[in-house]
């Protein structure tokens, strides 16, 4: 454990220093963009470190420690990387002074709301990460299953499993591995979603500043977006939707800045912004492929904003300026930047190239159908580009609009999850901004196009609004336009009423997420009664069938635990919280007899087999029950847990 903690600290230091070095090379020329640049680079470099370690088979604390030590030595000695401690201290002092000046420029009421919001959010995040294990469905079937296997194996690899979605692009899983590999435990794995949450919120601030909003209005926009229930819940939901939202909004902030502040002679920063935009989009592509569907919306905005005002000229100016900046760099700097870009490209395309090589389908396990014709074949049908899909999804969206069907919960069943601010204040703000602010129209149209293309391709389901948790930012940005347009002569009582109303909406948004609107007091108590290290998914009764809990009670930790589940079944809970349980997928058919099932179990290296309702085909559960009734070959050790007779 001590070695693990040391490795964690040293790798954290390496990630910080590497991000800092890259951040200094990729200057953006605007303070709010500098913040999102550094925040993004922390995620980027941590993901790169774990990906490299995982692919070479060094996914263990000591090898990562050695890699990190070598990396730190490089940073303190090699050319363009080099950052000395005095430089870091000096720049940190300047940063703190600038932050204090920025903070002091905000009105006192806004500072108070911000402090309260940050403190409450932090308390909520820390409590839920500490108190509860992961429990969201997709996390337990494939997101965390990937992480658990990689940590057990010491490498990033594919493995035998019925859940084909382990082949999905997995940059989120790689990043989240950093939160578990050093202590070989999932105690804080939910915290992996907090950095992208912060990035998304700050990106909204930067985007608002980029379209010319005041600091106060931009802070309000960021607070409003940060209070969106779907976004807060996703932050600790152990899934990748918050990462996509963060990358989309970061790209938006950069696109806005490149549009309205194209190329400056005095402090050119085109290279930094262009490189960052490329890296953000590449990271997104390696996280979830549907960023491709959102891109046209992002591109539409600058086209509309610069229409008739030399849009093409600006793009060429940016590229020329960027190339000039690149040429002015010393050779080591140029090599470093090329290396960073190649790394980003690698992280963007690795998963799809791997899938293409392994299965012939870069989007495996998904079928890709365009206008009804199969372009790539896979076991799961999800990528369909068709107007029929669009119509069905828009109908589904209309049914979810207003969040009247269900509480806002992880996976957003039958809801949009946008919350009180978006519907009560955001919608009227958007309507007003579209009618009265010409600059807002391209923004709204861009968001709408991204949303429509998403609806064109995602399969209709009660849960597909989790792919659009970036969308409520458009309400926040329109709201910032409205705030800056409030007359200075507005009576004091009206201002106070406005602030109180806004605070109420943000407050109710936050309150709605306290327990994911799902976890009861009894469930909390059952977890809090256990030591932190024993709060694992299998004992969290929220949605866990009994066999999972029982399996880990009756199967010795040093034995292999076999399982048979469907393509959407839970696997992760079987690893235990300390990822110490070896598991094996046992293939058998519903028409197999008991001897054949036993042979399959032994072939998989196990005497034990778990089957569970809703996770295993009913016919296979019947086979196991029948075998246990005869009891000659296999007996039932506990409900849903079977063992071969000795």
């Amino acid at each position, binding site marked *: 454990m001590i070695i693990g903690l040391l490795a964690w600290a040293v790798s954290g230091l390496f990630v910080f220093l590497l991000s800092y070095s890259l951040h200094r090379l990729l200057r953006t020329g605007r303070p709010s963009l500098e913040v999102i640049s550094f925040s993004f680079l922390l995620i980027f470099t941590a993901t790169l470190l774990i990906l490299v370690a995982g692919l070479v088979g060094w996914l263990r604390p000591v090898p990562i420690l050695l890699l990190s030590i070598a990396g730190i030595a490089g940073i303190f000695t090699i050319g363009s990387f080099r950052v000395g401690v005095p430089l870091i201290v000096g720049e940190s002092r300047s940063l703190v002074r600038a932050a204090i000046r920025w903070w002091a420029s905000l009105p006192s009421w806004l500072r108070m709301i911000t402090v309260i919001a940050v403190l409450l959010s932090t308390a909520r995040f820390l409590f839920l990460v500490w108190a509860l294990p992961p429990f969201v469905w997709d996390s337990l079937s494939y997101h965390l299953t990937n992480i658990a296997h990689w940590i057990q194996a010491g490498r990033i690899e594919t493995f035998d499993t019925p859940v084909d979605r382990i082949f999905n692009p997995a940059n989120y899983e790689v990043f989240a591995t950093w939160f578990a590999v050093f202590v070989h435990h999932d105690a804080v794995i939910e915290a992996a979603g907090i950095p992208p949450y912060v990035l998304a919120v700050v990106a909204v601030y930067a985007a608002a500043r980029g379209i010319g909003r005041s600091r106060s209005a931009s802070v309000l926009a960021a607070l409003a977006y940060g209070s969106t229930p779907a976004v807060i819940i996703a932050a600790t939901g152990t899934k990748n939707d918050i990462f996509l939202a963060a990358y989309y909004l970061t790209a938006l902030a950069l696109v806005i800045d490149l549009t309205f502040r194209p190329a400056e002679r005095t402090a050119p920063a085109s290279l930094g912004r262009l490189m960052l935009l490329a890296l953000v989009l590449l990271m997104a592509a390696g996280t979830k492929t549907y960023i491709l569907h959102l891109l046209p919306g992002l591109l539409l905005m600058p086209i509309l904003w610069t229409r008739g005002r030399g849009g093409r000229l600006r793009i060429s100016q940016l590229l020329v300026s960027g190339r000039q900046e690149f040429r002015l760099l010393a050779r080591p700097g140029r090599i470093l930047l090329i290396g960073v870009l190649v790394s980003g490209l690698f992280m963007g395309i690795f998963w799809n190239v791997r899938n293409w090589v392994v299965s012939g389908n870069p989007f495996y396990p998904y079928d890709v159908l365009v206008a009804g014709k199969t372009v790539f074949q896979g076991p799961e049908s999800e990528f369909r580009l068709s107007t029929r899909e669009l119509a069905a999804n828009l109908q589904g969206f209309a049914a979810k609009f207003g969040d009247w069907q269900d509480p806002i919960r992880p996976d957003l069943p039958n809801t949009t999850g946008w919350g*009180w601010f978006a519907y009560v204040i955001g919608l009227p703000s958007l309507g007003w901004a579209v009618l009265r602010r010409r600059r807002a129209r391209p923004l709204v149209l861009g968001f709408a196009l991204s949303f429509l293309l998403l609806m064109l391709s995602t399969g209709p389901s009660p849960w597909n609004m989790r792919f659009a948790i970036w969308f409520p930012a458009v309400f926040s940005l329109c709201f910032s336009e409205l705030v800056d347009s409030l007359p200075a002569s507005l009576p004091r009582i009206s201002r106070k009423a406005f602030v109180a109303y806004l605070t109420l909406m943000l407050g109710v948004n936050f309150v*709605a997420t306290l327990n994911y609107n799902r976890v009861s007091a009894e469930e909390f108590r059952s977890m809090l009664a256990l030591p932190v290290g024993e709060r694992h998914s299998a004992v969290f009764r929220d949605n866990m069938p009994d066999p999972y809990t029982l399996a880990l009670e009756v199967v010795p930790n040093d034995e292999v635990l076999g399982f048979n589940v469907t393509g959407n079944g839970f696997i992760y809970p079987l690893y235990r919280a300390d990822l110490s349980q070896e598991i094996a997928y046992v293939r058998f058919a519903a028409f197999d007899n008991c001897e054949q099932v036993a042979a399959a179990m032994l072939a998989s290296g196990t005497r034990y087999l778990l089957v569970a309702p809703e996770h295993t085909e009913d016919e296979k559960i019947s086979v196991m029950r029948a075998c246990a009734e005869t009891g000659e070959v296999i007996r039932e050790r506990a409900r849903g847990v079977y063992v071969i007779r000795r």
Partner: protein
Amino acid sequence: MTKAEIYALAAVSLMLGFWYATPQLFFSLHPLYELARLLFPGMAASITGNG
């Protein structure tokens, strides 16, 4: 922004608030109820039967 716009926006916002509150107000405040039940055991039974 004119006074008329401000009044119109306020009116629309309030109407949307009443619309959204049914039934989201209950859903949104339920977590507070569970928090109270967590802090004060035996205070009241679970409403959702999830306890």
